[in-house]
């Protein structure tokens, strides 16, 4: 199950959130070698992990096996502060109903099997879509390797580029926007063979995150 963690229910997930930051460090610094993110306390936390940040934590048997985060585009976020140059053609979308989605990770030992249809990766993407529809988030912005776009498209996400691809190390990356709506959710669930909801809202009281 994928747990939604916000400022409201964070106190219920302190340990798991800490595990998530440690896993982010293991993966982004340890595996991917993004040295700029290295911290002496072995937790990957940056200036965009704030009280406004919303986390999705995939938890199995009490252990965090995957996660991601949403940052409001009405506040400083990764794309606006560090990568705005990648969105100069279409311009960076900012709005109370648009959230930036970043730092998606899956624990190493679960990665291989997470790739199968209906596996953890699909569930997380279904969860992201479900969350957006629940909360009235009209689209998410992303910074992704171009090669991921193919898979995202195949599950039903209509990835719209915001600029030309940029070469970073050995990969091409793009800034993109993915519209979220009920039709997308239906398509994603169908394409990923997922029936029903995947999100858990523990200690959250149905509050919408944007002014409706």
């Amino acid at each position: 199950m994928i747990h939604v963690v916000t400022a409201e229910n964070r106190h219920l997930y302190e340990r798991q959130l800490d595990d998530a930051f440690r896993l982010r460090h293991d993966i982004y610094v340890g595996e991917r070698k993004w040295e700029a993110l290295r911290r002496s306390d072995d937790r990957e936390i940056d200036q965009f992990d704030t009280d406004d940040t919303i986390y999705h934590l995939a938890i199995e048997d009490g252990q965090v096996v995957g996660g991601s985060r949403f940052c409001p585009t009405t506040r400083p976020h990764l794309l606006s502060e560090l990568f705005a140059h990648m969105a100069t053609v279409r311009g960076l979308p900012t709005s109370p109903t648009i959230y930036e989605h970043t730092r998606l990770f899956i624990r190493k030992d679960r990665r291989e099997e997470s790739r199968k249809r209906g596996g953890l990766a699909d569930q997380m993407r279904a969860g992201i879509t479900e969350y957006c529809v629940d909360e009235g988030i009209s689209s998410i912005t992303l910074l992704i390797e171009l090669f991921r776009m193919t898979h995202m498209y195949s599950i039903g996400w209509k990835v719209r580029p915001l600029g030309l691809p940029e070469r970073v190390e050995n990969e091409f990356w793009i800034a993109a926007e993915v519209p979220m709506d009920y039709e997308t959710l239906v398509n994603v669930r169908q394409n990923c063979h997922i029936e029903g909801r995947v999100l858990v809202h523990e200690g959250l009281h149905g509050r919408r995150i944007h002014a409706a």
Partner: protein
Amino acid sequence: MTTPAETYGRLALQATDDFEKVTSPAALMERVARILGTFGYTQFIFGRTKVIEGGKIVPVTFIHGWSPAWRKHYVENKLFDHDPVALQAHKSLTPFEWSEAPYDPEQNPRAAAVMNVASEFGLRQGYAIPIATDHTSDVVSMAGEQVDLDAEAKRTLILISYYAHAKAIGLVGNRPISVEYDRVLTPAERETMSWLAAGKTTWEISVILHLSEAAIFKRINSATRKLNAMNRTHAVARALITKEITP
């Protein structure tokens, strides 16, 4: 002032928006051909390879826009087995110009032969963009007589190719399909034939395009030959029928 990057960027994003609306593989290929044509590419392919028993790599083309003559030659002579572009596309996901596909002409004369004969068929300069999917190893490969590629153009082509490829899979799934898109005219020839189809004389076209009459004659003759037409009137008819130009 618009920078080249912004111009290319707009072109790329326009193209990807355009692809979104397409509902048939033929329409998608028509749009892809048109965009690639503006860069100077006259032919392209969405190729796929799979590994069969014994580890041999075989081609499973899923959408092609090679000229019929080239395709026939390639298939009959099993050029895939020695094609350095196909090999490189399988080895690495980095986009590359055909001239960058490595082979040693002394150790591997058959590879050299493939590149030489491609040149003879008008595929003198090419660009290949490998794309991996969950289960296959694909490539969007394009070629033309004369192409000038700068860094911005490459980024644009890469983005367009990824989108066209994703859309193609959405439209045809995993079934191999032969959608023939045979463009034989260069953009310059197409432009000239379009004016002819509109009823302009050679002289009028030369004025419109700011070229000499001789240059216009050259384009018309070249187009007539490529379209296997008897004369320019016949050429216009053939260009319309084969959708090289639209009314």
